[in-house]
């Protein structure tokens, strides 16, 4: 029970902190002081207090977009184990639901973008959908590989199965998975080198351009949803990369907490030392991620 409460508290409270850590890391690398660590929380509260503006050309789809996306992401967050702890919801085959919930969120974000009729948002939706065609298989294949290794069909089963022994037995496959998943972690969360979350240049954006017309609380939901997605995929990634487990629940929570913050620092460092890919290179890199996870699949199938 306590674990479920902590799980819910973490998915509600922690995601914006990751953004704060990433931004702070980027600022430090660039020799700046940077915004306060809690700035994303302030931004969220600011947005929630604001009014919204809705274009007359939009329909209910535009208003539903942020809500459905956030709801889908929250539901997905209930399925994913954090550290060594079981999630509130878990059943056989929930990994399929997990993938589909993320896809549902994306579908509504893209549809809401198309609903505005703006040429920018149309371009953004086209880009997002094109690239996710290549990013989704990576997650699916990764889950299949882990499912094969663990013999389980539920997220909690396959993710908590990975351990140091597993790394010793099928390290090659896991290394390939880690590489593939890291690409997807960056691209799905619109981080550099795939997308630039801080740019103001509409023509170069992928994810950000789809939400240009949202304002106020709706935009706050989008921001929070994006942070939550980073949190979920980060947790998924950490299960594969760092399967550190001790028996003590408190210590396990500490390990999870520290490792996901460290992941945010790593993302911040990657963003600081790299420029963005040219847009035509993004599908190539994602395809490479697909190939990596496919190889991992082959290694565990033999």
């Amino acid at each position, binding site marked *: 029970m306590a674990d479920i409460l902590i799980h819910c508290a973490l998915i509600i409270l922690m995601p914006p902190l990751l953004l704060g850590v990433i931004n702070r890391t980027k600022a430090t690398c660039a020799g700046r002081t940077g915004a306060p660590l809690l700035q994303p929380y302030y931004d969220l509260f600011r947005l929630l207090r604001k009014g919204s503006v809705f274009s007359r050309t939009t329909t209910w789809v535009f208003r539903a977009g942020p809500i459905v996306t956030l709801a889908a992401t929250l539901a997905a967050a209930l399925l994913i184990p954090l550290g060594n702890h079981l999630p509130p919801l878990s059943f056989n085959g929930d990994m399929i639901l997990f993938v589909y919930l993320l896809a549902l969120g994306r579908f509504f974000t893209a549809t809401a973008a198309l609903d505005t009729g703006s040429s920018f948002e149309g*371009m953004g939706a086209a880009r997002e959908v094109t690239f996710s065609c290549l990013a989704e298989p990576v997650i699916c294949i990764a889950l299949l590989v882990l499912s094969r290794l663990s013999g389980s069909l539920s997220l909690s089963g396959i993710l908590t199965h990975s351990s140091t022994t597993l790394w010793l037995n099928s390290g090659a496959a896991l290394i390939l998975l880690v590489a593939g998943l890291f690409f997807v972690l960056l691209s799905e969360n619109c981080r550099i080198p795939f997308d630039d979350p801080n*740019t103001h240049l509409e*023509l*170069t954006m992928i994810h950000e351009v789809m939400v240009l017309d949202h304002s106020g609380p709706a935009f706050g939901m989008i921001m929070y949803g994006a942070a939550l997605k980073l949190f979920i995929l980060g947790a998924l990634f950490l299960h594969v990369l760092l399967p550190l487990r001790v028996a003590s629940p408190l210590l396990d929570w500490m390990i999870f907490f520290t490792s996901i913050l460290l992941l945010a620092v790593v993302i911040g460092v990657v963003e*600081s*030392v790299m*420029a*963005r*890919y040219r*847009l035509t290179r993004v599908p190539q890199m994602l395809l490479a991620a697909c190939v990596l996870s496919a190889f991992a699949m082959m290694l565990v199938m033999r």
Partner: protein
Amino acid sequence: MNSELLLKTFRNGDSIAVQDVPEVALEEFLQAIVELTGLGWRVVSYFGVPDRDGIGLWCILAGSNQRLGAFRARVEGSLPSITDVCPEVHLFEREIAEQCGVPLDGHPWFKPVRYQHSLRPGHDAWGRDGNRAILPCVGDFYRVEGTEIHEVAVGPVHAGIIEPGHFRFQCHGETVYHLEIALGYQHRGLERVLAGGPHAATMAQMETVAGDTTIGHSIAYAMIREGFAAVEAPPRAHSLQAVALELERLANHCGDLGALAGDVGYLPTMSFCGRIRGDFLNTSATLCGSRFGRGLVRPGGVYFDCPPEQATGLIRRLEVIQRDYRGAVELLWNSPSVMARFEKTGRVSLDDARDLGLVGPAARACGVARDVRRDYPFGFYRNVAPALSVETEGDVLARAMLRWKESQASLEFIADRLNSLPEGDVLLPCGNMRQERMTVAMVEGWRGEICHVAITDATGRFLRYKVKDPSFHNWNGLALSLRNQQISDFPLCNKSFNLSYCGFDL
């Protein structure tokens, strides 16, 4: 060579009597422009002067051996266009049509330039009502037809902190087939208020033609006034003007390199260069109290002297800045991910650059060795000019690399000037302007060739003052650089040109 004989030739900054400028028949005039541009001359200014009887057309060309040439003609009714055979005049012709209200015959893209009323009340090339405000950029745009073509309109309101301009892209998927740029939102009627001047506000107006080119435009204005008054600024003033001009170049080149890094999401160089640009601006502030160099250049010299201890202080400071600047920029060249974005993006060919008459770094990045400081020297540059850098690729990388090379040359040049400042006054009184003369002043600003042409009337006031910012030539270079490029690379290409909206809109 016959056409060259038609011209009255002179040097940059010279003042010549209006009656010495040959007036030829319109047909001969246009024929000569076509021939001269074929012989290697370049149109640096081409404008109309409306008067009681009609319109006088003035054309200033720049040739080899530091020669400038001028001649004129009169036009009544409509002006035959020569854009088809001499593309570099295409925008000049549209400007003449708009400012003088004279229709063009056979211009391939006959549209207003700045959406302003003509200087001749009652005449408008498009028959627009003279009493009603003209809305900028309202009208037809070039369209590519087809079911898979989509149009993207950007601006005039942008997400960035930049000036307003409107960009129409014709795209096929992510590929841009054509970009049309429409400006005019910043039109302030500068040339209109300059007529009848100089007024008390004229110097301040010249400093704000383009806020980031304050020194460039104010040197050009000072040269115009000195030419008319037959005054030569003292050598010490010339040295200080050159120092200020190069500092302006450094601040902007440094800021641009940082902004280019920012556009590809490369944060370290963006942050460092942003700060270093501030250091350069503060150096300008040490000279005159204004970070943008306002109040420094005055007709007859400079308003602020630079005492020896200040000069040595500046040299020491610039050495520190140079070290930081080098470190920040080398990060850029050493990042493969940045180079992958810069290389082969936004390419302009050498032929296109020549045809369009590009100027400044945009031209030099395409392999066109063109620099007013070397070709038509003015002020201190008559003694020595900084080393000329040329790149050949014409892409974003070439424009970025060129900025770095020019920065290095400028830093060296500034140190030399501050080390050897001539003795003497810095400001001479600049008396009344001589009547019925024409003066041409060309300055290599950081964006390229600035050209001011002024004509005085019988009372010694400005009859016509024509300002040309380098952006006037280069906006079309940006449009061409986007052909067959990814639309997502537009911000990067745009930044690599970094053109002025208000300098164009005047």
